């Protein structure tokens, strides 16, 4: 088991967004989390990286057993160094070039030498097809290009798992394809990924494991075939019906 | 440190009496400055090279020099200048004895406020999207009408927070009028202070009076902002 999470709870004021959520991941898994907006999937993902502090929960990861409600600074740093996050709004560092965006986590974050970091960054940028734009600033790139750099930034630190938070939701429709292609390539290369998305075709083709969340709980989970071809729960069926009709119309 | 509280309370009422002068000076300067500043703002946006250039130079000079120097300069200049004008008109009116220095202060602070307000008005006018003018013209209003009915009302709301700032700074700035022997809040406090060397007590009084006045002014502007800004989504 690479990563195991149990009993995650989280409330914002009176609103309970996560009610006892769990997840187990093996190396090489591509887990896709589906669900209507407001179902708590993004919050769950953010809790994994401590961008949001859970009210309760446990995590087993990289030989550590962590109480999610009271993580120590050391544990937070350790988890963040072994994971990477791809944001919905890209969040590229506005004051740094494309290359610097990718090397920062290696040099400052992990104390790597600059030359070594740049070699890794070049390779990562090559893989997402952004090697030609290394000296550009984020403001000079399209949304799709920015997100590809965001993925390269996450790949470069060689994390055990990459977390994707709706990576294509902020993009214009014609730019979604280029980002999904990069993600497919990553999955093919055996990268462990947890993806929150609304891209059903991607989920169906790439996911090794699909989780359907609604109202802060996991309603149903299984292989992509289980969920898409033989959904058991009424809520899952309704959701898929609504979304798939819309997508393939 | 022992403060003389009886003196402090007595002086507070004396100092409070200067508030009319302070507020009068502030209000008059704002009222005189506003129309001129608006004209300058329009000149900066639409005026020819000379008009816009001169306005810009004036604004830059006033904003680029300390107000205390503006006071010292005009206070050495205005009375003699006025005297020359009066004498050349053949009147035997005695400028030096008969003109209340309050009026020199009004001139100084008006001239200063013009420059500050002009910049605020200009950026407020520029902040209104061009589509507003185009929409006005498209339904048959003249450009002038569109400015009066649509653009200026919107711009004034945009300008309000900055005008509040200018007002607060102006109130504080009028405390320098004591250099022109105007009897405002600070001047009264200063006189009371030097009488018995109770400096701290009287300046603390002055300080409290300004704190009260500025608080009231800021609340008033906040109230105004909420009412005239009703059409804005974020208001």
């Amino acid at each position, binding site marked *: 088991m690479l990563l195991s999470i149990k009993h995650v709870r989280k409330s914002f004021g009176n609103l309970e967004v996560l009610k006892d959520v769990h997840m187990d991941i093996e190396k090489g898994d591509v887990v896709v989390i589906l669900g209507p907006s407001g179902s708590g999937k993004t919050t769950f993902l953010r809790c994994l*990286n401590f*961008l949001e502090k859970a009210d309760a929960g446990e995590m087993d990861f990289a030989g550590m057993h962590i109480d999610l409600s009271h993580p120590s600074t050391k544990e937070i*740093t350790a988890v*963040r160094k072994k994971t*990477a*996050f791809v*944001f919905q*709004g890209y*969040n*590229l*560092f*506005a*004051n740094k*070039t494309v290359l610097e965006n990718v090397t*920062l*986590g290696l040099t*400052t*974050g*992990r104390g790597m030498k600059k030359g070594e970091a740049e070699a890794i960054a070049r390779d990562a940028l090559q893989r997402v097809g952004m090697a030609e734009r290394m*000296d*550009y*600033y984020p*403001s*000079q790139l399209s949304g799709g290009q920015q997100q590809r750099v965001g993925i390269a*930034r*996450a790949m470069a*630190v060689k994390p055990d798992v990459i977390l994707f938070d709706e990576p294509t939701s902020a993009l214009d429709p014609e730019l979604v394809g280029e980002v999904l292609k990069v993600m497919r390539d990553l999955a093919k290369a055996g990268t462990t990924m947890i993806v929150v998305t609304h891209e059903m075709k991607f989920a169906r083709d790439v996911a090794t494991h699909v989780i359907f969340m609604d109202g802060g709980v996991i309603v149903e989970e299984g292989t992509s075939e289980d969920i898409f071809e033989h959904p058991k729960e009424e809520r899952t069926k309704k959701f898929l019906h609504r979304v798939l009709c819309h997508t393939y119309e | *440190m022992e403060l003389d509280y009886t003196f402090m309370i007595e002086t507070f009422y004396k100092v409070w009496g200067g508030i009319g002068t302070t507020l009068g000076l502030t209000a008059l300067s704002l009222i005189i400055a506003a129309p001129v500043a608006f004209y300058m703002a329009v000149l900066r946006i639409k005026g020819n090279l000379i008009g816009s250039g001169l306005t810009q130079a004036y604004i*830059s*000079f006033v904003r*680029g*020099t*300390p107000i*205390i*120097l*503006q006071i*010292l*300069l005009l*206070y*050495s*200049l205005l*009375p*003699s200048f006025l*005297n*020359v004008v009066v004498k050349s008109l053949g009147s035997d009116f005695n400028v*030096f004895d008969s003109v209340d220095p309050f009026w020199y202060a009004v001139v100084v602070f008006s001239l200063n406020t013009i420059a500050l307000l002009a910049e605020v008005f200009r950026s407020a006018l520029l902040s209104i999207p061009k589509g507003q003018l185009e929409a006005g013209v498209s339904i048959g209003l003249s450009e002038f009408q569109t400015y009066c009915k649509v653009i200026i009302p919107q711009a004034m709301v945009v300008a309000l927070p900055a005008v509040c700032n200018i007002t*607060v700074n102006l109130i*504080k700035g009028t405390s*320098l009028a004591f250099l022109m022997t105007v009897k405002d809040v*600070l001047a009264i406090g200063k006189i009371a202070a030097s009488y018995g060397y109770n*400096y*701290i007590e009287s*300046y*603390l009084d*002055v*300080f409290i009076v*300004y*704190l009260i006045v*500025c*608080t009231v002014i800021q609340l008033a502007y906040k109230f105004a902002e909420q009412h005239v800004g009703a059409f804005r989504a974020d208001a």
Partner: protein
Amino acid sequence: MNSTRVFDPSMIVQVIPDLLSYLDVTLLVAVTSILLGSLLGMILAWARTGRHRVLRWIANGYIYIMRCTPSIVLLFIVFYGLPKLIESMTDYDINDTNRAVFAIITFTLLFGAYISEVFRAAYQAVPKGQYEAAVSIGLSPFQAFRQVMLPQATVIALPNFGNSVINLLKEGALAYTIGLIDMIGKGNLIIAQNFGAYGVEIYLACMIVYWIMTTCIAKGFLRLEEHLDKGQSLRAKNPARAKARMLPVWKNVPSLMRRIQRQG
């Protein structure tokens, strides 16, 4: 003041060197206050954005009070009140301390309050996602602040910082009212030596010096902003794009010439 004397422009030029020899006092007060005030401003901004409620309350109150206090009143309170306060507490007489010290204390207190607003607003203007992205790739919170937040906040703060510096320089002109012999103090001495004459000329000369200084500072900050701005705004200078724009023109000249020749 009472004499109706002819204005003498040559006097302006004459006194400027004399006035400039006291400019160092003016600048010393301003620069020291800006440095110490920035430090105070950082602490205040940190307190205001922090989690500690009491600290936040104190910082907010302090800033509000400073915003409502005329600089000259604060200057008088510090100049007359501070020696008395210290004497009553420690039996130590600081009445003979250099007047510049009182001016610096006053302007530090003022500048700290103004500038903390600038710092806080700039820090909060940097999107929160920038911080999240930095820690998500393994930077420590301090590294994220130092490498990602601070550089961006600096560029955002720069125009307002420049404005505050200019305002402080102008407020510094008040220092002569407590008897500090700075540039204006010297100007007043010259006027006194001439029995009240040349007031207009000398004040004008001082104003010209201030005008030049403030204009240069404003220009300087504009340059600095352009220099530090790395792609955050559209105004940014960008080598890649500048090259892209220039190259075609370069390359096109010979081909254009050839085409013209062929047609001829």
